[in-house]
Structure formats: C-alpha cells, structure tokens
C-alpha cells in the first residue's frame, strides 16, 4: 500500500504567485474596495467643492467689522509667453526706427515708501524715504505701450546692482553696486543688447535677447519702477501684513538718444489700486528725472494677486489620503485580527517577501486610484474655478503631468507607509492615527495659518508632509520679492525633493516592519 499522494499539480511559490494571492485578498474584501473607490471619489469631489466655493473677488476683513468688504478683481495682463505679469511703470520714450542705440547715466536712484493710510490723490502724504531692493531705473525698448508686450531693458536696481531683464521672466545679473552707472541699449534687427559701464568709456556687455516680431518703429527710452513694500509679521495663529506702494526717483544725465523729444506714459495707469500721482517726469537742462511705481516682472502668488495656482484643484488629496491610509493599514492589521496572518506565513514562510508583495499590491492600487482621481480633479476643478471668474496661473504640460503623477506617487508611498506602520503596531487604530498625524497634521500647522511662516516652512522640510511639494504649480522667481509662503502655495523644497523626504520615511518604516515581522511570532 503506497502513501497518499495529492493529484493536484505542485504549486509554485514565486513572487508572482504571492502578488496574486495578496491581490485576491484585497480584491475580495468588499469594504476595502469601497474604501478605494471612496478615496478616488472624495479626492475629486472635495477639490470640485472647494473650487465651487472660490469666486474671483478680493476681500478685506477690517478689524472690528462684522462683514468683509469685497470687490471683483480683473485678470492680470499676460506676457509674450502667456504667463501672468505685472507691468506697471513710468515710461519716458521716443520712437526708435530701425537699428539704433540709447545711452544714459543713472546719476542717482532714490525711493519713497507711501503710508498705507494716505488717500489716493495725496499718495505721498506721510511717505518715508527708502529705496526697494528691486526698485528699477534704466533703459528699455518695448514692442508697444500696452501692458504685457515684449521688452528688453538694462537697469540699475536698488539693491541688486545692474540687471539685464527681458520678457518678464528672464533676469541676468550685471555688475553689482549702486549709482552712478552708465547704461546702453542697442537694437540690431530683432536683437537687443544691454551694456553697462562705470565711466562711460569702458563698456561691458551684460546680455542680449532676440525679441521676435519686434516692429520696425518701437518706443524706446527711460523708465522707473518700484515694487510694493511688503511687511509680513507672522505670529502663532497666522500672519498679517501691510502692503504699501513705493516710488522710485531716478536722475538721468549724459543722455544720448536719436532725438531730444520725449513723451511720458504711465504703463498700466489706472489699474487696480495703483495711484497715478506716484509717477511722472521732469526735465532741467540735460537732466531727466523719472518717477515711477510698480514693477515689470512675472506676477507671483499671494496677496494682492488675483491669480490662483492649479494646485488648489488637488485639495481633495487629503480626503483621499485618509481613506487610503485606512485601507492600507487594514490590509495587514485585519490579518492579525482574524488570525489569517498564520495561514499567510505558513503558505509563504519567507516573511520579507510577503511584506514586499503586500507593499507592491497596496502601492500599485493606491497609485492607480490617485492617478485616476488627479487626472479628473485637475481639469474639472480648473473648469469650475474658471467659470467662477478665477484666473489660474497657466502651467506647462510637463508641470501638469508632474502634478498628476506626483499626487499618485504621494498616495502610493503613503499607503505603503501605512502598511509598514500597521505591520509594526498590528493595530489598525494606532497605525491609521500615526500615519495621518505624521503626514497631514504638519501641513495643517504650516498652511492653515497656525504656526509662524518660518516654523511652517521648517515643518514642510523635515516631516513627511514635505511630499505635498510635488503638487506645487506656481513658480518662484528670484527677481521678484513675493510672499513665497506655504499658505500662498510655495513649498520650501523642490517637488521631487519633497517626495523624496516621504520616500525616506517610508523606507525606514518598511525596513523596521520587515525586521519586526521576521523577529516576532505571528
């Protein structure tokens, strides 16, 4: 009599079989499938609801007032690249036909900061002296005098020396230092070149730009601009700030231009909240004095900018994240509660591989859910925001893809972290709470104005919440002093570096989980 031998084919124990087993476990628990669907749906729904509650208006809540005061805000002008720009300055120009050049010496550059209490028609009442680091005065060639048109300019700044800037987003540093400085701007065909000099005889080329489609006759001349003075005081419970308009005054002499007839134009005059009395020009002998206010630069987020970042459409990620964390933690803790873990480990005694298979399955599922949700939430939220009259910063296709894929990766890595913590704690409640608190709470403290800005930025560097940087859609420009705070959509780390912080924490948790799983009895 021979021993019993099973007629079933011998099962293989490859990693593929393990993946299939874990996928079957995930797929056949109805609550978890519902949880995954809920994660995808709330990611889209919360984003769309937040977009529906955003209308294009600027509101100010004054101290003591019960109701905020609101007014509609127009969309900002856009530059040659389609990006929103601020284009407000005083332009003293003459027509320049064909090739030619302008030379002038900036004899002095001074500034005034207006008092926020001053009335628009007496903007300089109570003003105090002070030149802004990015106050600008110099020579400019512009396609025409409408806001947002192409330009190239060589300028002296209040605190950053000579700069060569063109088409709003481009900035090249020249020689550092302050006035007096000789500047020269030449046009040859479509190419404009800027030079600077300390003495008017030895010239250094700072930069050149090709402005395609520049008309034959363009306005060219002198300009002055000075960006708003922003003082942000942060305190626990939020930050508050004052924004005061400033004026730059530049004295130009030794001017060498095709003609001596100058016209003054305030570019962007009468725009939102800009006082016209801050700009103008006067002439005495060979000296031209130009006074200007505003900035020629890309627009950045934060008050008083009306534009919104595309990342607003992804606010539902937090809701989806919480649902995914619950499912991912239960994926392992439920095995401990039901005793299934003993069957799992008996069938596949190599415990590290079990954990790896679980991580792959739960990560892949979370990635797919996140990818689908983000790919729907971004265009849908954008549509709702636009139909509410909001202006959205345009983003490149690569940025949009990075936001979608990054959100999916963020959800996947967080789900794997929840699995790892669940393996270590074996309890669902502790694992879910620990991961939610580690990932979401630092973001709340940093963004919802609970901590001062510096503390919030520190949190978004060192905690897993740094990963939300992958959703940043706004661009930070070094040549614009703006409020680059988490509240306004600017993260302290670059997108992938932020995600790497979360990956680091997850790797540590996964390593610890594998160690604990191998050492403990199930």
């Amino acid at each position: 009599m021979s021993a019993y031998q099973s007629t079933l084919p011998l099962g293989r124990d490859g990693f593929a079989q393990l993946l299939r087993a874990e996928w079957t476990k995930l797929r056949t628990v109805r609550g978890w499938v519902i949880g995954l669907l809920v994660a995808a749906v709330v990611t889209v729904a919360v984003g769309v609801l937040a977009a529906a509650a955003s209308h294009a208006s600027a509101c100010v809540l004054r101290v003591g007032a019960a109701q905020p005061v609101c007014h509609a805000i127009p969309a900002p002008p856009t530059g040659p690249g389609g990006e929103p720009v601020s284009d407000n300055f005083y332009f003293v120009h003459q027509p320049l036909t064909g090739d030619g050049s302008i030379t002038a010496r900036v004899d002095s550059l001074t500034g005034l900061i207006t008092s926020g209490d001053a009335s628009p028609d007496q903007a300089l009442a109570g003003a105090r002296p002070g030149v802004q680091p990015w106050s600008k005065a110099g020579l400019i060639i512009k396609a025409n005098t409408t806001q947002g048109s192409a330009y190239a300019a060589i300028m002296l700044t209040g605190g950053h020396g000579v700069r060569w800037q063109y088409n709003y987003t481009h900035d090249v540093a020249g020689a550092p230092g302050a006035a007096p400085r000789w500047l020269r701007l030449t046009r040859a065909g479509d190419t404009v070149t800027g030079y600077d000099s300390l003495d008017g005889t030895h010239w250094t080329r700072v930069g050149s730009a090709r402005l395609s489609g520049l008309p034959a006759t363009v306005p060219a001349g002198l300009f002055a601009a000075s960006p708003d003075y922003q003082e942000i005081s942060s305190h626990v419970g939020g930050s508050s700030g004052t924004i005061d308009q400033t004026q730059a005054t530049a004295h130009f002499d030794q001017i060498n231009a095709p003609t001596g007839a100058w016209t003054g134009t305030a570019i962007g005059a009468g725009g939102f909240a800009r006082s016209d009395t801050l700009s103008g020009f006067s002439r005495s002998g060979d000296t031209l004095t130009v006074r200007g206010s505003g900035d020629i630069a890309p627009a950045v987020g934060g008050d008083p900018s009306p534009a919104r970042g595309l990342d607003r459409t992804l606010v539902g990620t937090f809701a989806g994240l919480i649902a995914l964390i619950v499912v991912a933690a239960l994926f392992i803790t439920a095995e401990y509660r039901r005793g299934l873990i003993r069957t799992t480990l008996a069938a596949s005694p190599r415990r590290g591989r079990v954990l790896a298979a679980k991580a792959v399955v739960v990560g892949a599922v979370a990635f797919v859910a996140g990818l689908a949700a983000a790919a729907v939430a971004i265009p849908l939220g954008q549509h709702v925001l636009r139909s509410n009259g909001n202006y959205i910063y345009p983003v490149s296709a690569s940025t949009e893809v990075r936001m979608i894929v990054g959100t999916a990766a963020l959800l996947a890595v967080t789900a794997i972290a929840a699995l790892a913590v669940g393996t270590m704690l074996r309890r669902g409640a502790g694992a879910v709470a620990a991961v939610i608190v580690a990932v979401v709470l630092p973001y709340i403290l940093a963004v919802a104005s609970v901590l001062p800005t510096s503390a919030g930025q520190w949190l978004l560097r060192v905690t897993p919440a740094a990963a939300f940087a992958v959703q940043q859609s706004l661009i930070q420009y070094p040549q614009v002093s703006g409020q680059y705070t988490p509240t306004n959509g600017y993260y302290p780390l670059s997108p992938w570096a932020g995600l790497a912080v979360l990956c680091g924490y997850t790797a540590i948790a996964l390593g610890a989980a594998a160690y604990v799983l191998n050492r403990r009895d199930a």
Partner: protein
Amino acid sequence: MRDALHAEWTKLRTTSGPALLIVAAVALTVAVSAAVAAGVSYTAGTSQDLAKISLTGIYLGQAVIAIFAVLAVSAEYSTGMIRTTLTAMPRRSTLLAAKAIVITTLVLAAGSLAVLACVLAGRLLLQGNGFTPAHGYRVLSLAEASTLRAAGGSVLYLVLIALLSLGIALALRDSATAIGVVLALLYLFPIVAAAVSNIHWWRHLQQIGPMTAGLAIQTTTGVDRLPIGPWAGLGVLACWATGAMLIGALSLQLRDA
C-alpha cells in the same frame, strides 16, 4: 449603575493600552506646546497670543485622545468582549452612559494635567523669550479670565473630542475606520478652508468644522476677528459630539453586537 461604572473602569485599568495612550496624550501635548513656546521669541511690532502658543500641543494630543476613546469601544468589538459585556449588562443605555462617564472623567483628569503643565511651561519659557511686562505682555497666569477660559476650554475641548470619537466608534465598530473618520472630520475643514478663496465660505468652513470652531476657545487676543466666538465655537463642537453620540447610541440599541 455603580456596578457598570466599576466594570468599565476595571476594563480600562487592567489593560496596558489605555494607560499608555493617556500618558502619551499628556506627554505629547506638553512636549509640542513647550517646543513651540521655546521657539517663539519676542520681536517688536508683532503681537502674539501667549495662551494660544502655550496650548499648541492640543493639535497633536487630541489625536491620541481620539485613539483612546475609539479603542474603548472598538477593542471590545474586535475581541468579541462586547458579547460578554452585553450579557452581563443587557441594558445598553446604562452601558453607554457608564462608558461615557468613565472616559469623560479620565480625559478630564488627563486634560487638566496636560493643560496645567502647558500653561506652566509657557509661563516659564515665554518669559525667557522676551514676552515680559516691559514689552507689554502680561505674565501668563490662570488668574486672568481669558487665560483661564483658554485653559479650561482646552480641557473641555479634549473631553468633547473623546465623546465625538466614542460615538463614531460605536457607529462604525472598526477601530481603523473610526479613527480615520474622526481625524478626517477634525483635519479636513481647515485644509479645505485654506484652499477656498471666497472669504464667506472660509468663515463658514471655520465655523462648522469641529476642530476649527472648537479651538476658538484658545484665543485670548483679537477675539472679535475670529470667525466664531470662543464659547459658540465650543458649542459647535458640542453639537458634533452630541450628534455622534446619538448615532452611536442608536447603533448600539438597534444592532446585534
């Protein structure tokens, strides 16, 4: 009822989890508060809310209190202990009342301890960081009505968070899902409010969110600028807790264990 209270107290006392969680809640609350108080220093021209700084740790401590309250119910369901409990004590309303009273008492005691330690740490650290009477700041003291309101209100806040968690855990039974729902309720409102650009909606979201409304109780300066008043805010949280407890009581009453 006395027996029911005694039974609930014994259940919590004789397992190590609840005691650890209570200790962790107190320790984390005090540690975070002290860290924030140590990191904020006086700069001229800014105004700080000293009571609120000293109580920042509540943001983290409430999560641990929520775990504690959820596990007081869910642990019984996951181990099957709930069937023994209900056999010994068939009147479910008595059981619920006993659980709520024991949890409230424990959280009251732990919360008072944590808040007192926070205020003491804030008083010592903030004075050292330049928040002195010479700079126009009064020394943090519970003798002041607004500070007493912030401190006492924070203890009540923790109690209401525990009751909210208890109700949700009774309705959902599963501990992981319950804690996920509680933390989503607490944390999602401020995040969505920060993303909404319409100030009316921002105010409404701050007014109805259990955490944003409830923590208004901690504010001692600029109270008139808050979206919701301190006691009204705590009232909103009380409504959330009452609602959750009602749903939890109904689930306990109507469903088989």
